[in-house]
């Protein structure tokens, strides 16, 4: 069962301008497919999370490397034996290490990785707010100091001038 939050993230992902469209299995061979459609669908979900270790940045779902096939078969075997999705991932990680996960787990090592987007967003919002509300007391709602006598004179002179045609 996919959780609600995960489902939502999936949609957000889909909304991404250039999100990964590798939803389907491209390297799955006909003989690998499980007869139970629900189990097969879970196998596919898990496969998209696992890296083909001998390829560059491909999930085992996309890769036609022999090792990827072995892993796909392994995933299906574990599922048939009644493992949950988490247990299958745990099993694969225990054998191949964290490197196999395309979505790294939250740990001390990946702390910066997972917190960075939020921190960057907050920083950018901070800079944005500074842009909209500059520190100088010149923003809306504050009264500027009154004009000096010389400035009043100049203003009058300026207002008396004929208006120039606007050029834009």
């Amino acid at each position, binding site marked *: 069962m996919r959780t609600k939050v995960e*489902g939502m*993230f*999936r*949609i*957000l*992902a*889909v*909304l*991404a*301008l*250039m*999100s*990964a*469209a*590798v*939803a*389907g299995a*491209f*390297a*799955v061979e*006909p*003989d690998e*497919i499980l007869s139970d459609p629900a189990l097969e669908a879970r196998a596919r979900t898990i496969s*998209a*999370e696992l*890296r083909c270790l001998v390829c*560059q*940045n*491909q*999930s085992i779902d*996309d890769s036609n490397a022999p090792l990827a096939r072995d892993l796909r078969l392994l995933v299906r075997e574990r599922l048939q034996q009644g493992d949950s999705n988490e247990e299958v991932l745990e099993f694969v990680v225990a054998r191949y*290490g*964290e*490197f*196999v*996960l*395309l*979505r*790294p787990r939250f740990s001390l*090592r*990946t702390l*910066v*990785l997972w917190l*960075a*987007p939020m921190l*960057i*967003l907050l920083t*950018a919002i901070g*800079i*944005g707010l500074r*842009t*909209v*509300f*500059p520190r*100088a007391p*010149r*923003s*809306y709602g504050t009264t500027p100091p009154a004009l000096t006598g010389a400035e009043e004179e100049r203003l009058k002179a300026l207002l008396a001038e004929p208006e120039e045609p606007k*050029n*834009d």
Partner: protein
Amino acid sequence: MIVELGHFALVLALLVAIFQMVVPAWGAHRGDQRLMAVAEPAALCQFGLLLVAFLALTYAYVTSDFSVLNVASNSHSTKPLLYRISGVWGNHEGSMILWVLILSLFGAAVAAFGRNLPGTLKANVLSVQASIAVAFCLFILLTSNPFLRIEPPPADGNGLNPILQDPALAFHPPFLYTGYVGFSIAFSFAIAALMEGRLDAAWARWVRPWTLLAWMCLTIGIAMGSWWAYYELGWGGWWFWDPVENASFMPWLAGTALLHSAVVMEKRDALKVWTVLLAILTFSLSLMGTFLVRSGVLTSVHAFAVDPQRGIFILTIMALFTGGGLTLFAWRASELRQGGLFSPISREGSLVLNNILLTTACATVLVGTLYPLVLEALTGAKISVGAPYFDMTFGPLMLPLLIALPFGPLLAWKRGDLLGVAQRLMFAALLATIALAAAYAVFHRGPTLAPFGLALGVFVMAGAISDFASRARLGKGSFGDALRRAFNLPRSAYGTMLAHFGVGLMVVGIVATSAYREEKILVMKPGEETSLAGYTLTFRGVAPATGPNYREEVGVFDVARKGAAVTRLEPSKRIYDMPPQPTSEAGIYPAWRGDLYVVLGDAQKGGGFAVRIYSNPLVRFIWIGALIMFFAGAVSLSDRRLRVGAPGRARQTPLAVPAE
């Protein structure tokens, strides 16, 4: 002989670039017109010399001169002419030659078309531009020289990777590089302005066309790469969050923010700090993309450590320009006078939001791309950051951006009326709601929230149309008046509307194809039929065939819909002669509702072939959207105001611009 001429021209180009880097800047510093005037002919000369170098290398490729090491390692005599030419930039050394050629082309263009630029600014810009050329010419001559000979020459070459022998990929690098390198002009302008301490609306007006041109080329370059991946790699995927893709996507995100920021600066003299910083960062990200792709660091941190010469060189270049640029920025930024004030709800405010979200998205991609490399270099621990990470972090940032997008262009400068804009977007919201209801009615499967994604895409598209209607005051006054107003709208306004429409179309394509893709993987024997997404496919069998430099097995599928024959698809499996490598050519039937995509797999025991059939609904909207964005950029670029330089000089007649 011709190859040596090219080599010689490259060395001369380096010397000219050194001259162009030093003399005009010195002249600008001393206020000496004669020294500054040197920049123009130097830039043109530098371009001419690099063109000679590039053509000499191309000549070696076209004539298959295997006494040149670079040609021998990357070309083959049986390759079709187009791929012999594209082979020039299909390898490291040649692609770097293309890189500096485009760099000098931009410099020469500023020299030729920038007649209305103030003398010192022009001299400084061309000087900074030349400094980049110096760095990369040195890089090529010292670490990646394509003109080296070998003795004795081999009988034939090693060939070009067959999956790269493709029309879309032949033109993908030139566009991508024009985009990457084009941002160097924005960088040079930013550095020159910081050096002079002069940064105003006119500056933004000069920078905009160059940025726009670079952005257009990067957009179409990335789209071409994605399209190629879609039909050539045989998986039907079109974006993989691969580090190489991210390397080109990051400058695009920053460049998009830069483009919008420069508009605010031009119109309202605000967001100066953002614009200058983005100009520096966009080009820095282009340099980083070059580093990531060219240093070999992506293949493995260890491979990089074993032969670090090239990588260290580019890293040094990157550190110099990025570090230098940012230092200059930090030093001078406080002197940038804050321009026009505005309330948070205003066009400016919406563009600040745009900058926040785009730069954050860009930084997120950056962190995800570099994190595994840095972690491994620091601790030795290996982790993978793949598509699921980017989907989770990048996706949520795009949601507010797309919701806010239609509001931006409708808001007034300085102080906008959010309620009024919302009212004007009622039509768009209505269309989006209809799309939402229709999607729920039509699709019974797929993720529950996918219809909202489709509706959002429709909202963005309809918002662009509302923007147009609102500018033409359609429905207020007579239709003729509206038509006249529409006709008189500046081209840049058309550009904005078209580009935003393209974004909406792309979103619809992305959501539809991601959420409602169908697939079938099965074994088929000749004569058998199967059906998917309303199509019936009959497998007729497999026949062998030979091409110019490959042999193939072609599968024949007759496709019918509702009993009527639609088309015949012929996906094939190819084996190239040199290098001997198998590729898979998908059979694709494009229709407005989506693509039918058939891939022929391996022969199975007991006869029959593995066959993969996909239905990719509306997938073409993705590239059509990108194409519209490219076209929108061209429309905007043709705006008179961008071509005629400084604002407010009515006596200055438009310069005669030669046909390009």
